[in-house]
């Protein structure tokens, strides 16, 4: 993607751009049905619809942690784009996730990520995954991303 792919000012338009970018260029996010549902100045909220194929424990129906990881990784990456106000080539360096309580079977999962520090090369992001109440999170995460200049 071009690094001069600057976002439009209009928030709704920006969300549409990001969602189109995900369905065109991130096949795995498209496969999972991930979408941006809310945008702030340096934060973003994405939704992962519940699906039986995401179950990790067939005895309880609880989500596999890997699905939570994927939602959080994607949301953190988009938060970096939002902070940069453009699409850029980025790569996850590391990601730590604490699983605070099991994700509820049958309920969609949301993740809110905030890029709280941006240097020339590295972006620092924190995120919470939840079922609609961000004060009762399912998982808490912290990640770093490298910004690859073209």
């Amino acid at each position, binding site marked *: 993607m071009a690094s001069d792919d600057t976002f439009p000012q209009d928030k709704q338009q920006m969300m549409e751009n990001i969602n189109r970018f995900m369905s065109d260029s991130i096949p795995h996010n498209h496969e999972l049905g991930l979408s941006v549902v809310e945008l702030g100045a340096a934060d973003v909220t994405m939704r992962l619809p519940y699906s039986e194929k*995401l179950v*990790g424990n067939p*005895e309880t129906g609880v989500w596999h942690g890997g699905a939570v990881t994927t939602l959080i990784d994607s949301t953190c990456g988009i938060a970096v784009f939002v902070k940069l106000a453009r699409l850029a080539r980025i790569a996850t360096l590391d990601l730590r996730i604490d699983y605070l309580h099991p994700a509820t079977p049958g309920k969609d999962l949301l993740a809110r990520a905030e890029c709280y520090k941006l240097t020339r090369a590295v972006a620092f992001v924190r995120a919470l995954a939840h079922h609609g109440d961000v004060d009762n999170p399912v998982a808490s995460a912290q990640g770093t991303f490298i910004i690859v200049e073209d």
Partner: protein
Amino acid sequence: MESTPPGTPTRIADILRQVRQTGDYRLLTEVIPYTRFLGIGVENTTGEVLCRMRYAPMLIGNSAIPALHGGTLGALLESAAIFELLLRTQEERVPKIISITVDFLRSGRPQDTLAKATITRLGRRVANLQVQAWQEDRGKPIASANALFLLS
């Protein structure tokens, strides 16, 4: 494999008993919807139990490079840790993850990825594992993780 009808909970303990008798790891990996979805299997072709995530186009996270989605690599590392605990300990339930820290070392090419988990400490309540994932060259891992699980 047919999916389990609703209301008939799958008993991991029964499946593990069958796996230990037959050595057929698919009985376990196929019964977990998410590992079946991602194409993650367990194999033992060299006297060592490894996890393999078969390449599929829907695992891609960046079409431009192309590269595997970091989330799918995280999922493979976590799955490898879970299977190691289920197959190497007396656990009879899917262990609950407490935390995982993933380092992404190289971009994942569009091909199969292998993973090996090692139990670094098995306590009464908590297990610590280290996991590595690689593609062609085991000496050049593409991702690694430290993971903690709560045991039942």
